[in-house]
């Protein structure tokens, strides 16, 4: 680790401590606000000859604040580093802002949430877009007994700069989602469709449109169960997804590779009432823009969350 990197790390840790003290004081002063911080890291390795990618790493944090159950906002910052086989790398910063309002109108047996997200990515790559901006609008419904969920999301992403992307791309994404509980709410299944249209696709040697489906399954265990886990998770994505935006993870897959599948398993531990640790392992499959054979990258994702109540 260089001195600069070490100093940056110390600064980041001190900033987080200052931030967490600030949040704690705000939450204690006003018990109508509830805050949560998520620290996450992701790492993936690519050994396949079909790609020039060597490894992908990501680290970041999200701060979520909610006023009772009426609404809230989330601020996120993530840094991603993509190392290539030739020793070069692409570094990018992702800033995420999100706001939500919850409505409980009479006559509807559940809660409606209106959500708006904004993303801004800047990177230092020549080939990829210099900057990506995206906005999402989502309306969701969860019934009061928390056994049925549906949402519809729309995202407009704008890619600017970048030689290989012909300088400018506009991408529209629709994501209808349905979720439901099973086995007396011991299980939750969620299915989301990704329907993505790309403007100016031919100029950038990209498909006009891609579509993919994602299935997520969560199983809550009894106390003192397997490895003392609170829940087990399984996720699979099939189809083709390019420039997808994952609302749950607040992530844009902005690097110009075609995602053709993802498989992950993991679990979450809950410590007391305020701390959670989630671990996911899986594999992602991509095709390069040149249409080579698919290549795969196993990954590991770790998330620690702390809530102030």
């Amino acid at each position, binding site marked *: 680790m260089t001195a600069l990197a070490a100093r940056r790390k110390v600064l980041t840790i001190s900033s987080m401590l200052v931030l967490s003290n600030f949040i704690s004081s705000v939450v204690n002063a006003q018990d109508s606000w509830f805050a949560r911080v998520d620290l996450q890291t992701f790492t993936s390795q690519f050994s396949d000859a079909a790609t020039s990618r060597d490894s992908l790493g990501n680290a970041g944090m999200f701060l979520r604040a909610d006023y009772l159950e009426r609404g809230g906002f989330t601020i996120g910052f993530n840094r991603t580093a993509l190392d290539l086989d030739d020793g070069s790398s692409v570094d990018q910063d992702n800033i995420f802002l999100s706001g939500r309002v919850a409505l*409980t109108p009479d006559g509807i047996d559940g809660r409606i949430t209106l959500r708006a997200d904004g993303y801004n990515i800047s990177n230092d790559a020549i080939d990829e877009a210099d900057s990506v901006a995206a906005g999402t609008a989502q309306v969701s419904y969860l019934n009061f007994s928390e056994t049925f969920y549906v949402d519809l999301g729309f995202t407009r992403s704008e890619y600017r700069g970048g030689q290989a992307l012909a300088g400018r791309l506009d991408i529209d994404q629709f994501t209808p989602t349905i979720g439901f509980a099973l086995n007396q709410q011991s299980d939750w299944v969620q299915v989301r469709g990704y329907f993505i249209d790309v403007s100016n696709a031919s100029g950038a040697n990209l498909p006009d449109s891609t579509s993919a489906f994602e299935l997520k399954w969560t199983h809550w265990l009894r106390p003192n169960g397997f490895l003392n886990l609170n829940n087990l998770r399984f996720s699979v994505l099939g189809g083709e997804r390019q420039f997808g935006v994952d609302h749950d993870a607040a992530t844009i897959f902005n690097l110009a590779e075609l995602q053709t599948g993802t498989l992950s398993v993991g679990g979450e531990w809950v410590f007391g009432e305020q701390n959670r640790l989630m671990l996911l392992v899986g594999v992602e499959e991509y095709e390069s823009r040149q249409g080579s054979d698919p290549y795969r990258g196993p990954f590991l994702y770790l998330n620690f969350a702390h809530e102030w109540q």
Partner: protein
Amino acid sequence: MSTQRHRPGALGLVALVFLTTSALGQSGWQHSYEREAAGDYAGAMRALEPMIESQPSNEFLILRSAWLKYLNGDYNASLRDYRRALELNEQSLDAMLGITLPLLAQRRWREAAAQAHQALTVAPYNYYAHLRLMVAEEGLQQWRTLADHATEMTMRFPSDATFFVYLARARAWQGNVAAARAAYGHVLERAPGHEEAAAYIRSNR
């Protein structure tokens, strides 16, 4: 002379209006209670409407309207009425506790908990305030908080089965089977037919 001649008429008119209103009120209340007992909450509400129009600041009418709207599933309207009742009488525990009902029905656990805490500042050992706070704590899955809270309440209300139920649920979610069994055992002593308690003890012998 004409004044004297009209005075009895005016008094009679006032009396007539009073008696009519009173009679309408009596029949309105009775009809409202009858419709509520029959499960016709909209009908029970309609029976009150003439009185609400003539007495828009009648605290009890507003409280009853809030209750009937809650029963009828009109949770936002119920909330508005309970808040109006609290504006009229800031001391009203009925209104403070009433507000928790539509909030809990809408799964607004934190808001309900905040409201229950407000009631507890006025009446620290109010049974319903503690009960509704526990419902919110259960909804928020705050098992340690719920366990501590329920333990205290079983000391304050040792003959009550409900607080032992919440204690048992919290212990069960904490993975403390022995403590959950003990708490459910206390439930069965107080409510021998309690299905949840019997089922837990049966499946955790």
